[in-house]
């Protein structure tokens, strides 16, 4: 029995910061290209959930029964972050959800863990990162934010799109980069030292993987080399012995290095390009080296078609889009680097744990209730029907993945927000149901009655250390999102 990747989903946030904007503000060199920026209401959990939704949207057959969430920038410590993703994806209660916190290397661990159980049941690895750094530094400039989810399973229903052929790794303890908990800026040792240590570690893993798979380097059709050590990654790319055209390009120019999400983005990108039968290699340079070899199957083209039909955008398309006019001051504000005067309004209240727990299907899954007697749809779910007053005759229906249109909206300049003004919208959902919520990733001047929206999972606020996750509406015709063709279809 073979196993491997059965589905994937990628999420790059809407916003782009031009590197020239940093130079323009701080007086340094202009810089080229842009980086992706998680909005003020996003974190690694919300981005991970969006990637997970996209992976599951294109998934046929059983849902994952294990979720491995890897990020160096967790929203919580002590509390598992994967459970919020598990909840919003509405995975079964018996499905596991585990965090792998701390480094780019954790992502390889998540991929291997998900693959490791694939013979028994499907599992999803969610890789997410929100890259920070000191103002004006290379970490800030060259990094990007995003998340990717990869679902692993066995081939009993011909669902495997890329068969897992081999893995080989090397592990080494040395100071390449580090950051103590609570800090937002990573430290790195002199780059030439890291390169010196890394390159042999990669070559060793590379040889082992090829040997294990019984292939030679020239047989590899696509190879992606990822890692935060730019110099080592560059040296590895030119020394693997592969055909030159096999080395795939990264997205450094448009979205930056996605850190722990980069291995996932590289895999997704290869899956979105490869022909059936192609041999894919992922090389991760992080505290040692990991090499994964996969072979694209005949199921891959059909999977790609299904994804496009579902309106899911490829990594390359998302990377190439996004509004490039995010002011640097707003970026700094979002990252907490620029403390702004708040409005004279009360701080948001912390949500209560019992109330939140009771409303998990609503808060996490955006479930409405439909009256069995008259069909009226209630958001949040109600027990007594608004239209016919029937009591406790309701069916639950998930609206998180249902689109809608703006019935009316307003721009609220008084309500508290990290990024004022708040846009409030009344959304009418396709197939019924109305709800009043916040909009995000939207330009107040571009919103109109009739604007098409989708629901996205965001952090409404953080009060007393509690992240208040809930759903907002965002325009669907935004760059970096589902293309218009898919939406109309």
């Amino acid at each position, binding site marked *: 029995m073979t196993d491997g990747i059965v589905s994937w989903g990628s999420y790059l946030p809407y916003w782009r910061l031009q590197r020239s904007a940093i130079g323009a503000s701080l007086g340094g060199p202009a810089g080229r290209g842009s980086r992706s920026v998680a909005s003020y209401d996003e974190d690694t959990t919300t981005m991970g959930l969006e990637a997970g939704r996209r992976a599951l949207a294109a998934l046929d057959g059983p849902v994952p029964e294990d979720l491995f969430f890897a990020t160096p920038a967790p929203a919580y410590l002590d509390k598992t972050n994967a459970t919020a993703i598990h909840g919003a994806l509405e995975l079964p209660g018996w499905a596991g959800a585990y965090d792998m916190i701390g480094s780019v290397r954790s992502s390889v661990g998540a991929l291997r863990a998900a693959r490791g159980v694939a013979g028994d049941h499907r599992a999803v690895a969610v890789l997410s990162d929100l890259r920070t750094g000191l103002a004006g530094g290379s970490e800030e400039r060259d990094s990007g934010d995003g998340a990717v989810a990869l679902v692993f399973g066995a081939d009993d229903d011909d669902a495997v799109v890329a068969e897992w052929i081999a893995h080989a790794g090397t592990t080494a303890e040395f100071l390449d980069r580090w950051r103590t908990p609570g800090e937002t800026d990573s430290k790195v040792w002199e780059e030439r030292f890291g390169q010196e240590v890394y390159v042999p570690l990669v070559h060793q893993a590379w040889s082992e993987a090829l040997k294990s798979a019984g292939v030679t380097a020239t047989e590899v059709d696509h190879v992606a080399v990822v890692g935060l050590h730019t110099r080592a990654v560059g040296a590895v790319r030119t020394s693997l012995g592969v055909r030159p055209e096999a080395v795939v390009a990264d997205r450094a120019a448009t979205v930056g290095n996605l850190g722990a999400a980069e291995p996932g983005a590289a895999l997704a990108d290869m899956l979105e390009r490869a022909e059936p039968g192609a041999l894919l290699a992922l090389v991760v340079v992080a505290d040692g080296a990991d090499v994964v070899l996969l072979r694209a199957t005949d199921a891959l083209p059909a999977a790609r078609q299904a994804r496009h039909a579902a309106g899911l955008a490829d990594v390359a398309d998302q990377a190439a889009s996004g509004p490039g006019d995010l002011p640097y001051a707003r970026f700094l504000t979002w990252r907490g680097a620029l403390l702004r005067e708040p409005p*004279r309004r009360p701080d948001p209240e912390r949500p*209560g744990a019992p109330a939140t727990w009771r409303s998990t299907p609503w*808060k996490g899954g955006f479930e409405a209730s439909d009256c069995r007697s008259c069909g009226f749809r209630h958001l949040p779910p109600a027990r007594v029907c608004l239209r016919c007053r029937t009591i406790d005759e309701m069916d639950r229906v998930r609206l998180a993945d249902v689109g809608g249109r703006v019935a009316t909206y307003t721009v609220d*300049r008084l309500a508290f927000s990290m990024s004022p003004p708040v846009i409030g919208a009344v959304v009418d959902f396709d197939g019924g149901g109305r709800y009043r919520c916040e909009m995000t990733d939207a330009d107040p001047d571009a919103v109109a009655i009739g604007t098409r929206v989708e629901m996205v999972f965001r952090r409404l606020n953080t009060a007393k250390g509690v992240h208040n996750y809930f759903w907002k509406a965002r325009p669907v015709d935004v760059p970096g999102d589902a293309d218009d063709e898919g939406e109309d279809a």
Partner: protein
Amino acid sequence: MSSNGIRDRVAIVGMGCTPFGERWDKGVDDLLIDAAKEAIASAGVTLDDIDAFWLGTMTSGTSGITLSKPLKIDYKPVTRVENFCATGSEAFRNACYAVASGAYDLAMAIGVEKLKDTGYSGLTGIRPVGDGTDAALSSPAAFSFVAPSYADRYGVDPEEMKQVMSRIAWKNHRNGAVNPRAQFRKEISMETITRSPLVAGNLGVYDCSGVSDGSAAAIICRAEDAHRYSDNPLYVKALSFVAGPGGGFIDPDYDYTTFPEVVRSAEDAYQQAGITDPRASLAMAEVHDCFTPTELVLMEDMRFSERGLGWKDVLAGTFDRDGELPVNPDGGLKSFGHPIGASGLRMLFECWLQLRGEAPPERQIATVAEGRTLGLTHNLGGAPGECVSFVSIVGPDLAD
């Protein structure tokens, strides 16, 4: 629904109302004492004569002790009530019922709110611990859905709509300019109002009511006892209150051009008072002008104007102090701000002055001299789609 009402069974025999405003000099206790003192003096009674008390406040205190302690009330029933922006009116309504039932001979309804001590701009609510999913829209934003929906439905040009809104603010500020108890006692030009900075949607600062402190009180007795206390009491003709099912947020048929709660409570009040044509019957109305589009829609929901034509009446000056039906002749929430617990009783206080001919000549409405006798007060609490509504009708004459 059966609403029998207590038409002409109770009377107001004394009232008091503090100046509203940023009362840095007065605490909750001071405001309560000032309003109560004026009210008992007005009725010619002492605190000892009052058998029971209803206190309305949303955020300035809990329990009857909020009132009994500053007034040193001797072991008598004091009920604290809250019902959003109708809190003061709710204190009045319940005091009226207590007297009508015969349980007490003399009751006081008093409302107070001390908003300026919070240090915040706008209203602050006390919410139970929840799941955090309520959209954090401000009140101006919640009401800002009204204006564009109204303009769209009735084909009012957006520029003209802004003029209509500004005209309402202009009128209420003009009324408040000559009222010594108002928070804002200055006329504001149409241009200043129209150009004021936006708060939410197309609501500018001058489309929103202010934030203030204040207190007001009424002394209530059975109608047959009224002349023991006052030569010219005000009789209660109608009291109505409704809480809506809160469907506006989720009902795709709701279009923000009406407040069904207001329609229901107004019709109930008219039925209790025997009114068929409110525009022709009322001498005045004090309505809940929390935001200018609210007042516009209220004119239609309470049948002062035909559906879709309220904006024309506003522009024609129908509701000006010297118009056909004066609305908010005291200056309204626009001029008084909105100390929640006090506002409803402040509205009654204006009826008290105007309908009994005690308003100063410079702001006396003409409709009373023309023979109209009835005054209406109204509160709306909550937001379009999810609110409570109160309507009272009072007048100096007993029906035949």
